[in-house]
């Protein structure tokens, strides 16, 4: 049984002091139901997640107590992807006809302060100041720039593009372009990455209605099919966040594994994708993830970025809604934001940030601690 996305909803990302995270989730859920032309009581099951804004299943208090199985998902940055895979499998199995996935969050300002104990790492690791995701991303791109001759200017250009795209997206947090000069000269956070090269924790909510593909046209004229949804954790030897040590022999990370599995599941290849949303916790991540997901060879990013290929009108548009850089990262909602954006793109409803040429296939990728990755491939 194939699976279709027939309704989508989003609560604008950024800061909304007047609404709790849960209320932002309910807002997105109501919009998704409205988009599919159904009521909450029509939903047979739900998967949802939130890292800092309470239990996702508390949404039933807002939406109505209908007795459905609502399963909470907690998988760090891959929470949205994991919810989607769970819903995908629930429908594919034939057990359910229609359900909802949702993710929302509301984080405090500033970098996340992760607890080493939760990840099975000694407390000393945090005490000496190494329990920082920002350091990992900085060290990974530092090594990558050294090995593959990526320039600092390309880091700046990725950030500049994110804010250009964010300015075109009414649901983005940061909606003003920032000049290359300002990005390059902003406060250094973790060398070589400056303040405007990192995303920030934020708030927001996303929800979508999924159903069996043969029922899709009951709910929408523009169904989008979920051709693949995969999630992988790290294998021994991959270089990952929160690792007090790593093996001398390096292997491909979970992004490469999840990407290969998704292309195999969908029966298509990287060259077939018309638009892609790639995890951009910071600018280096976007650059490295272009190659890790198979869209170019390692090192080719330099020429592609300098030529503007990753812009909305370019040959391989990346993070057309402004990505995490312009939207911030509410953990529970972030992966679903990417899928929301791709549904808009495939429906031709992305407005100012619409990719030209009627895109038919779209790709999403998330990466997070402690070394997990989730990928989806959508087709209209």
């Amino acid at each position, binding site marked *: 049984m194939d699976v279709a996305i027939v309704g989508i909803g989003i609560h604008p990302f950024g800061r909304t002091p007047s609404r709790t995270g849960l209320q932002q989730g309910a807002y997105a859920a109501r919009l998704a139901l409205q988009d599919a032309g159904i009521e909450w009581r029509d939903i047979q099951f739900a998967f949802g997640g939130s890292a800092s804004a309470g239990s996702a299943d508390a949404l039933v208090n807002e939406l109505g107590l209908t007795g459905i199985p609502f399963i909470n998902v907690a998988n760090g940055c891959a929470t949205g992807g994991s919810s989607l895979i769970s819903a995908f499998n629930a429908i594919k199995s034939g057990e359910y006809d229609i359900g909802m996935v949702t993710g929302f969050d509301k984080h405090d300002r500033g970098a996340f302060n992760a607890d080493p104990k939760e990840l099975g790492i000694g407390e000393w690791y945090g005490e000496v100041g190494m329990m920082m995701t920002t350091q990992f991303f900085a*060290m990974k791109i530092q*090594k990558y720039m050294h090995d593959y001759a990526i320039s600092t200017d390309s880091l700046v250009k990725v950030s500049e593009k994110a804010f250009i795209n964010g300015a075109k997206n009414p649901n983005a947090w940061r909606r003003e372009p920032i000049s290359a000069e300002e990005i390059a000269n902003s406060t250094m956070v973790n060398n070589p990455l400056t303040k405007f090269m990192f995303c920030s924790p934020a708030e927001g909510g996303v929800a979508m209605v999924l159903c069996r593909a043969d029922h899709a046209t009951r709910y929408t004229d523009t169904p989008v099919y979920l051709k693949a949804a995969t999630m992988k954790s790290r294998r021994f030897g991959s270089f990952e966040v929160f690792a007090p040590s790593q093996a001398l022999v390096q292997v491909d990370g979970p992004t490469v594994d999840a990407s290969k599995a998704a292309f195999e599941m969908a029966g298509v290849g990287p060259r077939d994708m018309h638009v892609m949303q790639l995890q951009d916790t910071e600018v280096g991540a976007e650059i490295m993830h272009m190659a890790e997901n198979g869209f170019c060879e390692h090192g080719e990013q330099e020429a592609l970025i300098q030529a503007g290929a990753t812009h909305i009108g370019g040959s391989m548009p990346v993070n057309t809604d402004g990505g995490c850089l312009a939207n911030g990262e509410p953990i529970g909602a972030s992966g679903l934001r990417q899928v929301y954006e791709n549904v808009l793109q495939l429906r031709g409803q992305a407005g100012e940030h619409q990719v030209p040429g009627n895109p038919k296939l779209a790709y999403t990728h998330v990466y997070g601690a402690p070394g997990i990755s989730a990928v989806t491939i959508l087709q209209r």
Partner: protein
Amino acid sequence: MSKQVPIAEGLFTWPAARPALLASRCKHCGVASFPAAESCMACSGQDVAIEELPGRGTLWTWTIQQFMPKTPYKSNETAQTFRPYGVGYVELPGGVRVEGRLTENDPQKLHIGMPMEVVFEPYRTEDNGDEVISFFFKPVN
């Protein structure tokens, strides 16, 4: 009376005339882990032996932490006295790549591939006066 205590038990030999980082090495597949673990992440084997890692290696990658982290960061610093610090992975031949703080925080003085050595120095002082010792990597001149 104040004394010197290691930041964690089993991380390195302490006290010792020549302290060293401690790893576990899997007797089945030969892979080393730091910190020492009861099982092997490579092959799931549970037969491991503790060994001292080499004291010298090369810098694999690095960054400078420019802002003071929130908890669980625990030093004696305040927002006013915080000094940016280097963090890097040092490849210890035959062992593993170990992540550690660097004694150097000047980006101009750090480059991938440079020789580094492990040193054990006071990191913070506890309320009872105990000096907490941690490991750092220092450029070899």
